[in-house]
């Protein structure tokens, strides 16, 4: 295929995940000439191959992550499993994602003003509110207005919520007694046919792959962008952004294609949408005499304040069937404790519909077969329950993404370095999540308990904070429109702009910001 650059492009977008895909679609539809450069491949064809790769041991990962292209260093106190936390390809990490989507709370935008921690956003919930609604329509979010803790909304969800699971009804007994409120949770997944995609048919493998197409992936907006005239070049790895002599504008994105050729894509406007780690890497790789510390980095904030959400969980077994692993998504959460002040970190609780092992996956790993195996599966499946939680991590300067100049990828470029640790305040919030979980499981009489708390926690794969948004060019990378303070025509789309990350999964907010960015960028094209 021809991977050469496009003449007279208005906009060059780097990255074809949701942050790039939505901007590409909006701008292409408005008549702009749009080029999208995507490092990974297009995963065409039948998703059943990925399904089998997920279920059957011995076939490798479904999204081809982790080769020399994706090398990285993890240097902080806590190991960061970067390649489990992202996908490179048309659709980006939404190929693998779970698809839980919710809006940030009002306080997330003003945590410093309210509680003296974190960094305030230069915009508030009300600024994003119409874009949240638009983002829900773009994703086709299934949800219900039964969550008393959610921020205000003006319109119903585009699709009806998935109804609660049998497992939810077990938790509901305990939560009722304990005064813990359960409610539905937004799913970027079709509860009915929507946007030419199938309704959910219960494959149960949402993460990492939905063979039916019911789960939203950004492929959908990339395709729509192409239908509206955008050119999408896959396997095009952008290695450097070049600026003009004055250092005011980006003039080209230099990218390398699989044949080893390097091309230059020129454009009037550039949008960086590579995710919260690769956005940083590309800015740092684009250093120059004018910008020795990397592009758009006169604040020194590029790469700093890396945040993720932390997982806390608890589970065990009951003496009755719990009907897990029919579907791969959750139908209930609890946001009651989200806005609490002690600890101040946001926290949300999840009631899992995929607790414990799946018989088919267990069978394929077993060291026996026949009646022996059946006995084992009988024992291992059927009575598990578990609760999850996401906990907020506040921005800290010493959690950062940088370049490891000692280690290079297969093209010879320095790899990203993730320097990350979990601080005591976050650990306290994880313990708080465990406390609430324990109350519920105690009430239910759950046995054979396991806990993921401060000592076992891991990241939820949400890369935030590394090109933070703010009004002050001294302390932030982009302005409230997501445009770099330093360069007029460089925009950054994605969760790297979040100054503070809350505890809600980020992608609906990414989408809302992308739609807002597209509008602002469009206005500059005249």
């Amino acid at each position: 295929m021809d991977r050469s650059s496009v003449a007279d492009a208005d906009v060059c977008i780097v990255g074809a995940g949701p942050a790039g895909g939505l901007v590409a679609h909006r701008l292409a539809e408005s008549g702009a000439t749009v080029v999208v450069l995507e490092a990974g491949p297009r995963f065409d064809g039948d998703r059943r191959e990925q399904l089998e790769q997920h279920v059957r041991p011995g076939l490798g990962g479904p999204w081809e992550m982790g080769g020399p292209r994706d090398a990285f260093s993890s240097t902080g106190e806590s190991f960061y499993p970067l390649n489990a936390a992202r996908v490179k390809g048309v659709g980006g990490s939404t190929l693998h994602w779970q698809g839980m989507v919710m809006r940030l709370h009002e306080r997330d935008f003003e945590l410093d003003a309210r509680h003296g921690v974190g960094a305030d956003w230069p915009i508030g919930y009300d600024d994003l509110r119409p874009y949240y609604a638009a983002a829900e329509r773009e994703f086709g979010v299934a949800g219900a207005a039964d969550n008393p803790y959610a921020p205000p909304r003006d319109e119903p969800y585009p699709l009806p919520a998935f109804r609660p699971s049998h497992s939810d009804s077990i938790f509901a007994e305990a939560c009722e007694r304990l005064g813990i409120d359960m409610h539905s949770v937004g799913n970027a997944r079709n509860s009915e046919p929507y946007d030419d995609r199938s309704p959910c048919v219960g494959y149960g493998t949402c993460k990492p792959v939905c063979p039916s197409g019911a789960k939203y992936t950004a492929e959908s907006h990339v395709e729509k962008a192409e239908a509206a005239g955008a050119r999408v070049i896959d396997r095009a790895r952008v290695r450097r952004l070049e600026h003009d002599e004055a250092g005011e504008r980006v003039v080209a994105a230099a990218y390398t294609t699989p044949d080893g050729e390097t091309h230059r894509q020129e454009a009037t406007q550039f949008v960086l949408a590579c995710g919260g780690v690769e956005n940083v890497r590309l800015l740092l790789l684009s250093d120059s005499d004018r910008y020795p510390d990397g592009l758009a980095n006169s604040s020194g904030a590029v790469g700093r304040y890396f945040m993720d959400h932390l997982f806390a969980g608890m589970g065990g077994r009951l003496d009755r069937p719990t009907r897990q692993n029919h579907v791969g998504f959750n139908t209930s959460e609890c946001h009651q404790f989200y806005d609490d002040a002690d600890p101040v970190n946001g926290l949300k609780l999840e009631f899992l519909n995929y607790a414990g092992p799946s018989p088919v996956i267990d069978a394929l790993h077993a060291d026996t077969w026949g009646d022996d195996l059946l006995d084992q599966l009988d024992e291992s499946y059927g009575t598990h329950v578990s609760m999850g939680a996401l906990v907020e991590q506040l921005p800290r300067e010493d959690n950062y993404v940088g370049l490891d100049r000692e280690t290079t990828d297969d093209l010879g470029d320095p790899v990203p370095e993730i320097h990350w640790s979990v601080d005591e305040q976050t650990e306290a919030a994880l313990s708080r999540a465990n406390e609430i979980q324990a109350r519920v499981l105690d009430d239910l009489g759950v046995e054979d308990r396991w806990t993921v708390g401060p000592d076992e926690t891991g990241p939820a794969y949400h890369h935030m904070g590394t090109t933070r948004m703010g009004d002050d060019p001294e302390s932030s990378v982009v302005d409230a429109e997501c445009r770099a303070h330093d360069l007029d025509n460089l925009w950054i789309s994605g969760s790297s702009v979040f100054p503070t990350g809350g505890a809600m999964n980020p992608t609906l907010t990414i989408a809302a910001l992308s739609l807002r960015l597209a509008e602002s960028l469009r206005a500059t094209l005249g």
Partner: protein
Amino acid sequence: MRLTRRDALAVLAGLGVTGGAVSLTQFDPPTAESTGEGRGSDGERGGDGDADDTPPTAVRETMVAAGEVVYPSAAEGVSEFVETYVVGRTRDDSRRAAMVDAATELDDVARDWEGAAFADLPADDRDRLLRELGVDAADPVPDGTLSERLRFHVVNELLYAFYASPTGGRLVGIENPIGHPGGAESYRRATMDDPETTDSGGEGDG
């Protein structure tokens, strides 16, 4: 617990193998489902290679014989189920040769060590032979050592077909196992539905 051809087709559909029923009738005797039309021409049981992508009879027999060992003793209808699955599965060119090779090598080992075709050995001997080859402990590797390949292309292929099918899943309490598009309703039920009254095919009821 009776496995049917329909169960196998449901698993194949989950794997993206569809339209399999057409070629199956080329070597399967007609069943109640397929007698509607063309009994004379479709109904004959062909020999090896009657359709380009039909695996040799010996391979199908070896796979059925292995299925009888790796499936729980409560499973009935193994032969029809495995044959249907194997024929559908080997329509995938990337799998066909490796599965045929693995099954053929297993059969060769049986003839060498036990002096009989794998399919002709008593079930206990088949079980023992697979374990002596280390297949129970081997990691499944599509292009690995013999035991790794047997684990991947024979044992795990069969176990996948069984436990990703609603009928196999039911044995352990899940009628909509992972990998099977059994609809967006079963997760809401307190108990397994009645298979007699529910369509457990691949259409989904959600």
